[in-house]
């Protein structure tokens, strides 16, 4: 592909398109924007394939490009607003895990609560639970220290527990 081989690009696209699209979609919560950004990512892959040095896996490299392109898109569609990189989930009054377990068995409620997470938290949840990636690789993709990835996941889990408990209280689960 680095030599401009179009058939290699086709094969690459078919191999990674689904994963990359789902990751972008999880960040943007918008199908049209996600399709646009996927196109930007693949175009960037085509242009910069020659600069890929193999220091990370191909999937880490392409998901890293996707992360940055998605952040750019968020910034463009919300001019003046900063992207929430490491939002605080301040209060520590999260419900007990055992109390929220029954709510977590309802797929629809889990999806609704995941959608309510910040972009940064959704990304980490997606990469850890959908892609099953180790925290070190997630840190490479989103460009932050490993400790930050762990903290984001911790806060995301608390936010999910709180959301699920809230839905349970409202009798929605």
């Amino acid at each position, binding site marked *: *592909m*680095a*030599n*401009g*081989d*179009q058939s290699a*690009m*086709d094969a690459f*696209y*078919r191999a990674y*398109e*689904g994963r990359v*699209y*789902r990751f972008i*979609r999880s960040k943007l919560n918008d*199908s049209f924007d996600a*399709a646009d950004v*996927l*196109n930007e990512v*693949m*175009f960037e892959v*085509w*242009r*910069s*394939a*020659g*600069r890929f040095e193999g220091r990370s896996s191909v999937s880490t490299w392409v998901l890293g490009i996707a992360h940055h392109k998605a952040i750019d898109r968020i910034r463009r569609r919300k001019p003046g607003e900063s992207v929430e990189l490491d939002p605080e989930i301040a209060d520590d009054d999260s419900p*007990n*895990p*055992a109390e*929220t*377990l029954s709510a*977590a*068995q309802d*797929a629809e409620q*889990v*999806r609704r609560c*995941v959608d309510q997470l910040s972009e940064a938290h959704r990304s980490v*949840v*997606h990469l*850890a*639970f*959908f892609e*099953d*990636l*180790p*925290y070190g690789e997630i840190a490479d993709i989103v460009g932050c220290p490993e400790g930050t990835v*762990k*903290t984001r*996941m*911790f806060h995301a*889990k608390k936010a*999910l*527990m709180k959301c699920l408990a809230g839905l349970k209280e409202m009798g929605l689960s």
Partner: protein
Amino acid sequence: MMAQNGTRDEALDLLLPWYVNGTLSDDELERVEDYLARSTQARDEVELLRQLHRQVKEEPQENSPGELGLQRLKREIEQAERQDQGSGDKLAGRTVTVASFWRPLAVAACLAVVVQAGVMIGLPGGTGGDVEPAGGEVALVPPVLQVTFAPDATEREIREVLQSAGASIADGPSALGVYGLRLQQSADGAIEEALATLRARGDVVTFAERK
């Protein structure tokens, strides 16, 4: 902080999601398993995380753009190639393909040889003193311009254009034959002046933009 009799260990709590997705190192896995054996709360949390993991994994995914997306990408690549190669080729009505990738690479290799020869000629009797480029010291600054060269441009033409623009090749060629250029001076005015010089030689430089 170690967990004793069911108390929490914050450092190990942070690892629980990766215990659930099965990506911990052997050492981490051992410590987490030991923790789980001691802490009921940690076990409850793992149960919840497993449930969340399952739900996220099983969530129905909407269709990705698939082949339509690939067709769109191909159109945009073709368009970009035409733009990259376009302006200079208008003169001769040539069609440039990605296969021309090797030509700029060969030109770059020739340039490297020429520059090296220039340096060697400039050496005072080969005494082994410090080697400096004949044109003086070039600061190692990042490339600020990107260019493509006409497929039939000769090494001599490329050298002349680069010298008149005060530019040198810093990186490339990319998959599309794009080179990065650095300038001896990086002030805004100097960049614009170099761009104008490069663009004035449309027979040699087919595309020139800021990086």
